[in-house]
């Protein structure tokens, strides 16, 4: 519940400033996390889409989210407070990335 809040797919979120929240997709394929969104801000939604043949997870090192991603599925998290969050796959810990959440 700290920086990112796990949520089910939510149609529209309002950012703290009142502007409409954006939605970004991070694609997982060939044993890698794809590029992370550059302009991610608090309140935006991050969709994790697993295009890979393997089951993966997107798991925050700080425990703020932990998303199970069977092959061909997606799951969303909503960015909470600004900051950077390192994430990895629990099954394949060499798969890593960092989300940068702006205010």
């Amino acid at each position: 519940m700290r920086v990112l809040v796990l949520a089910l797919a939510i149609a529209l979120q309002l950012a703290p400033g009142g502007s409409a929240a954006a939605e970004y997709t991070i694609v997982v394929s060939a044993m890698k996390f794809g590029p992370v969104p550059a302009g991610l801000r608090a309140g935006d939604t991050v969709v994790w889409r697993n295009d890979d043949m393997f089951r993966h997870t997107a798991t925050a090192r700080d425990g703020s989210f932990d998303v199970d991603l069977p092959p061909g599925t997606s799951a969303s998290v909503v960015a909470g407070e600004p900051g950077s969050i390192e994430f990895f796959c629990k099954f394949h810990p060499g798969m890593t990335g960092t989300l940068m959440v702006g205010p």
Partner: protein
Amino acid sequence: MIKSTLVAMLAVLALGGAALAHDVPTDAQIAHIAYTAGQLDIAEAEQALQKSKNPDVIAFAELMARDHKAVNDEALALLGKLGVTPEDNPTSQKLAADAAAKLKELSALDGPAFDVAYVANEVTFHQAVNLALGTVLIPAAQNADLKALLVTGLTLFTEHQQHAEHLATQVK
């Protein structure tokens, strides 16, 4: 550790040597070798799931069964699309014979003795397969889709090798 590294090196020599003995392996042979290696690791995992009581070993075996099945399903689909029939070869036969002997050897063990032997063999097996993929099979693969699948496989199996190496330091 020294022993398992030596075993791995011998296994690699056997793998690479058998493949090289027939010049450069064809895509049909490469596919057969990679598929066979996956099936053998699934068989080892199924044995571990029947015998082990160690939660970490069970979780590792479940991961092996799931990931290797996923690669092999993808390989079968790709081969079907390409119209390539996997071709049996001395490297696949050597892999299968060694794995059958190992399954039999491990079947006589129980409890922690089984866990230690299973995990040690997973380290050796993945080391050997990864070295063969990196030095022989991937360089020799002609079809771009097959090569890409093998490269993804090598990334995956390197994760497995590291996982097994870490587990080997924990299982006693």
